[in-house]
């Protein structure tokens, strides 16, 4: 009965979204405040209804209501509670409900916090947002009803894919969706602006926080997914250039570009129509990503049961939204008048270069990801495009961009003094050179390119630091004055320094992992040892352990580094009897700079066990850097210039005042 109520609420949400899509649009056209006002109420109602639907689904999973087909297929009564809950989105239907839940949440946020938006703009934004809701709620109702009943109800469920029973993956989808769907806000604002035919500085100011929020969530989501792949797939890699990963990387790259171009649109009134185009592309790539992972054209842990019908419907939705938005763009964009002059040597000039390079990088990833699918669809040969392709395209495009990052953020608007900016970066440049020479002198193994890579990473981190130092007068004034300046520095400035510095740390991690990781594959009998770099690994014992819903083969590995005893590591191979699957649980010991990573495999039939071990240099830095980048996004988001309803109040409050 409760499940039927959930289904009914979803149908109501569809109807509400339909009203929200049509009525405010007419209202905005006629300047009818009453009709426009419906948008806010409808957005809140839509969110409440979908939240209820989602709650019903969570309830069904938590109480293991196996009369629901979805629960029976994807859950099991012995599963720990957290995986019962994450099981809600560990399948196609539930993950789509989560998708529309987040979509309607964003709509509700505009309704609640958007009181400083002009009425007609708000009404149009909410109407466009609702049209996306109509498409996806309709998709769920027609092809992916999560509330189908089973009669008779089975006594037990089939369990969740063990690969998904993992804390890293339990929260990866909500973050990723918050990012993907968050880009729908930028899209809705872009389409609304095209319909209005005007974009001004305030438009860009409203778009920026939404994009920033989506970008932050997407950064966290991608980092979590990569971390999960690192520790569960047992290969110790952090990025496989798998199409599913690329599907999340492409919107991220374009969102990064959008983040930067929106600054130009706000501060200089330029790049308006380009910003709108990027907003359309960012969300379009999110939709393409949804299509890729949900339609079953890709083979991965994300490809839940594939149903060709669903693929066709999603492709239809993608076509309508992308095609519609681009057609509207072609028709209306010429109305947007550019203002502002451009000097090549200026912050806006640097941001244009940033945008061009990021777009080129997204293009390379797009081709590498979609070309094989395109060939296949044309009945051509089946090919795969692996990491070498991306190393040869993505990397050469990104390197110049990374070199320019510290410089660009030090250039002033309009007309900048390149020499002055370079002077401020002399310290960072010197540090980069020292690191480069240090790596060449003290690290004998690994390619010489690694030294340049580490220099680049240092350049980014030190560049971010020296910029802050310059802005706060760290090296040029008394310390008390620096503290005062630091307090008054806009949060966005801190956020940018964190994001750029975090990027440098990611670069260091990637370079270290690529250049210096060491691998060992061997078979050990109990009591035997093997060497990996400076480490000695001894397989002391192999035994069995009983988990809540699995039994595990456990290897007890004694680790020594030289004479130093580092204790034991216990890699596991878990067998899930319900799902009839196995899952490798790597043992990872980190010292903050490198990870020791040990995996146990099968009995090799000769009394030994296959052991695979890696020393992953700088691996933890990849995720630490990504989290610092996301933290930068969050800090920027708290900048008072973004604060809700801020423009007028912020001006009043920016007078000298005591510390907050």
């Amino acid at each position, binding site marked *: 009965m409760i499940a039927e109520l959930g289904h009914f609420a979803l149908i109501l949400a569809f109807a509400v979204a339909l009203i929200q899509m049509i009525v405010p649009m007419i209202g905005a056209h006629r300047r009818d405040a009453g009709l426009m006002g419906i948008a806010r109420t409808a957005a809140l109602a839509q969110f409440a209804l979908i939240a209820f639907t989602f709650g019903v689904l969570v309830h069904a999973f938590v109480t293991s209501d196996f009369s629901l087909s979805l629960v029976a297929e994807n859950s099991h009564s012995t599963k720990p509670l957290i995986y019962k809950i994450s099981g809600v989105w560990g399948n196609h239907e539930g993950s789509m409900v989560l998708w529309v839940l987040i979509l309607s949440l964003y709509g509700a946020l505009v309704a609640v916090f958007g009181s400083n938006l002009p009425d007609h703009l708000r009404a149009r934004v909410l109407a466009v947002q609702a049209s996306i809701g109509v498409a996806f709620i309709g998709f769920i109702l027609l092809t992916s009803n999560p509330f189908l009943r089973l009669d008779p109800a089975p006594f037990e469920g*089939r369990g969740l894919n063990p690969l998904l029973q993992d804390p890293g993956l339990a929260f990866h989808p909500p973050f990723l969706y918050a990012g993907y769907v968050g880009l729908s806000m930028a899209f809705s604002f872009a389409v609304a602006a095209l319909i209005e035919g005007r974009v001004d500085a305030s438009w860009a100011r409203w778009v920026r926080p939404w994009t920033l929020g989506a970008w932050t969530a997407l950064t966290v989501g991608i980092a979590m997914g990569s971390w999960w792949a690192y520790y569960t797939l047992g290969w110790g890699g952090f990025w496989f250039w798998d199409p599913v990963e690329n599907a999340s990387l492409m919107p991220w790259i374009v969102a990064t570009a959008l983040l930067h171009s929106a600054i130009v649109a706000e501060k200089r009134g330029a790049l308006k129509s380009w910003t709108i185009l990027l907003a359309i592309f960012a969300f379009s790539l999110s939709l393409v990503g949804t299509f890729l992972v949900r339609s079953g054209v890709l083979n991965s*842990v994300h490809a839940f049961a594939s149903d060709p019908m669903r693929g066709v419907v999603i492709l239809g939705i993608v076509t309508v939204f992308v095609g519609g938005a681009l057609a509207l763009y072609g028709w209306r964009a010429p109305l947007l008048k550019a203002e502002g002059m451009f000097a090549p040597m200026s912050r806006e000039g640097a941001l244009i270069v940033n945008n061009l390079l990021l777009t*080129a990088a997204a293009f390379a990833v797009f081709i590498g990801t979609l070309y094989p699918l395109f060939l296949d669809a044309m009945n051509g040969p089946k090919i795969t495009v692996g990491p070498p392709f991306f190393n040869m395209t993505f990397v050469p495009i990104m390197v110049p961009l990374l070199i320019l990052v510290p410089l660009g953020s030090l250039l002033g608007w309009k007309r900048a003094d390149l020499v002055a900016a370079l002077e401020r970066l002399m310290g960072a440049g010197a540090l980069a050179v020292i690191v480069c020479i240090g790596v060449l002198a003290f690290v004998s193994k690994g390619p010489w390119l690694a030294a340049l890579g580490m220099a680049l990473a240092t350049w980014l981190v030190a560049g971010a630091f020296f910029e802050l130092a310059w802005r706060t007068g760290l090296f040029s004034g008394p310390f008390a004055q620096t503290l005062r300046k630091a307090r008054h520095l806009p949060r966005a400035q801190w956020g940018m320094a964190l994001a750029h510095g975090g990027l440098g740390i990611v670069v260091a991690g990637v370079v270290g992992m690529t250049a210096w990781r060491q691998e060992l*594959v061997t078979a050990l009998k109990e009591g035997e040892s093997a060497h990996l770099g400076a480490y000695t690994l001894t397989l002391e014992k192999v035994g069995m352990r009983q988990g809540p819903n699995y039994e595990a083969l456990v290897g007890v590995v004694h680790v020594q580094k030289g004479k130093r005893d580092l204790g034991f590591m216990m890699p596991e191979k878990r067998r899930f009897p319900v799902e009839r699957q196995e*899952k490798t649980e790597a043992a990872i010991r980190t010292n903050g700079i490198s990870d020791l990573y040990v995996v146990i*495999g099968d009995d090799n039939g000769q009394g030994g066990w296959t052991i695979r071990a890696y020393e992953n240099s700088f691996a933890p830095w990849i995720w630490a850097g990504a989290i610092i980048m996301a933290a930068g996004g969050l800090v920027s988001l708290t900048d008072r210039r973004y604060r809700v309803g801020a423009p007028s109040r912020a001006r009043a409050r920016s007078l000298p005042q005591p510390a907050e």
Partner: protein
Amino acid sequence: MTRKNRRAAFIALGLAILAGAVGLVLNAMRDNIVFFYSPSEIAEKALGPGTRIRLGGMVEKGTLKHVGPTTVSFNITDYRKTVAVSYTGILPDLFREGQGVVAEGMMTPDGAFVADTVLAKHDEKYMPPEVAAALKKSGRWQEGEGAQPYVKAP
């Protein structure tokens, strides 16, 4: 520089970067794509050793053997032709006899296949699309096998 010139300069820069990206992509396409073949196609094509390919099919039942301390061998079949595969390392969790698999590596001159990567990203509910297509082509596909959702016995 006049406003027009500046605009032209930025457009030229954009085109240059775009051309560079296209060049990089085309260049990388030439050497770095890996073709997917079924065992039958390999028999027809007579591939030279040293070409990196992906080989997909079903793991023949009863052929998985440990041939060295860390090396295993098994046969990949599409029920018409069969290729012997050897692999050093730990097989993925989802690897199982009688189920679909994709192996990446090279052919040796004597017609065997040395894999350096084995992908078995599937479960009972799911089969890699390439494998399903290869089996369909060899006429050994039965509807309801693998790609159908939820055929798993409880």
